[in-house]
């Protein structure tokens, strides 16, 4: 088998088994629907009465919907690494690492499965928007773009989570760090307020936050006439480059899990 062929085949083998496990026990998927409902139905309803937020002509609810999708993608993916710590405590990882499978394929396969899992978040948000009469773009190209962004974003944050798992190695420390990271990542982004509203220092921080680019892409793809800071191409480029970097780093760190 050629090297890229081998990489793809083995990544798919990993991703397929991960997805099997996931859909065998879908409770987690549905519990992830609770938060977006709260944010849109409660927070969103209240804040749509505030007039001073500079978001152009779109309503606040519509403005924040892509932000909440990005947030639920982040929250679902950021704890992905806990499964690897679990596998390490059992011994599954040991076996995988003794196989001739490239380390990058072990990581990439997991990222792909996390990406596919993220699609469930997108479905939940579209459903909510339908129920709440939030006006979203429904042209097929736009929806396809949203799904791609969601897969890419989920894979990116899941890989980030793998990196954290490889560094901290224990469940307790991992949960602690995960808890500490999610809120700052969320608030230091344009998910529920535009960059223009931020104090300059926060805007700088948001510029280094991949979530900002995910939100920006989603907003352009979900809402007609939405205010976007970057072009779609730029957003996807940033997300892809960061994802590839994360995969390289995680593949490097993966073997240290069993040391």
């Amino acid at each position, binding site marked *: 088998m050629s090297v890229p062929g081998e990489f793809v085949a083995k990544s798919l083998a990993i991703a397929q088994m991960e997805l099997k496990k996931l859909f065998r026990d879908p409770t987690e998927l549905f519990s992830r629907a609770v938060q977006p409902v709260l944010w849109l139905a409660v927070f969103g309803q209240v804040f749509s009465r505030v007039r001073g937020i500079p978001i152009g002509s779109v309503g606040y609810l519509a403005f924040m919907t892509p932000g909440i999708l990005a947030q639920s993608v982040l929250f679902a993916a950021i704890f992905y690494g806990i499964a690897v710590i679990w596998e390490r405590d059992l*011994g599954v990882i040991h*076996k995988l690492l*003794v196989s001739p499978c490239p380390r990058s394929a072990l990581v990439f396969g997991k990222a792909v499965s996390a990406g596919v899992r993220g699609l469930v978040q997108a479905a939940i948000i579209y459903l909510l928007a339908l129920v709440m009469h939030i006006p979203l773009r429904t042209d097929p190209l736009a929806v396809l773009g949203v799904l791609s962004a969601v897969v890419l974003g989920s894979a990116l944050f899941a890989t980030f989570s793998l990196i954290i798992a490889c560094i901290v190695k224990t469940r307790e420390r991992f949960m602690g760090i995960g808890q500490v990271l999610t809120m700052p990542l969320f608030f230091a982004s344009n998910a529920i307020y535009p960059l223009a509203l931020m104090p300059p220092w926060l805007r700088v921080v948001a510029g280094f936050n991949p979530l900002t680019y995910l939100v920006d892409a989603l907003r352009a793809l979900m809402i007609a006439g939405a205010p976007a800071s970057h072009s779609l191409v730029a957003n996807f480029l940033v997300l892809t480059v960061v994802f590839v970097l994360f995969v390289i780093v995680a593949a490097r760190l993966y073997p240290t899990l069993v040391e």
Partner: protein
Amino acid sequence: MQQATKPGGHAIETTGLTRRFGTLTAVDHIDLTVEYGGIFGLLGPNGAGKSTLIKMLTTLLKPSEGTARVAGFDIVAAPAEVRRRIGYVPQLLSADGALSGIENLTLSARLYGLSGAALKPRIDEALRYMGLADAAEQLVKRYSGGMIRRLELAQAMLHRPAILFLDEPTIGLDPVACLSVWDRLRALNREHGMTILMTSHFMDEVDELCDVVAILHQGRMAACGSPAQLKAVVGEAASMTDVFTHFSGGRLDEDEGGFRDIRRTRITAKRLG
């Protein structure tokens, strides 16, 4: 069934192989040669360095010092070549409880590059060989301890490795399950020509299976030879337990068999539960 390939030379050859964790030397300048074809037993008290040695030989851990060749390849310079030629069943549990037996095997097979028409016959054969054909579709978390071990052996034999590394293959198993695992190990050794290196705490297991035995003590090699040779050294009518006691100091040292080691062993014994 074709025999596992046997590249020339020794199955395993280590020179001054050493691994340190901070100030602790877990494996201390081990020189070891294992020939193709036999079942090699690695004994030693908790914390002696058995698992650490196996992890280095299976390319999971880098040595701090020294070298080793496994199946003809250097573990540091050519780990990928080594991985293609070995199978490994870790001390911990390595089958995925959330997947069925057949799914576990399929994943392993695909990671070893088996695909297409070659895949299914290999998997079916491994299932049959390990007596798991009827349980193939069941989730592994419903398997008994003995079935899990046999599944792990099935996973480790799929790609016909030349050398099989087993870290405490019968830990936590009841006597009947032990017998079935022994039987399958012997079959892999005799019928498939797989060289086996295994660790164990059970002296009757060692007596039963191993042609050559090495005893590790505090990371060093305390003795190496056939069970008969070692018994002869210790004394007339000596048992394997006498041999073990003789070469491993004969008492529980302060600095080994400590909480950390026991805890890990117990966790292993609990397995899926």
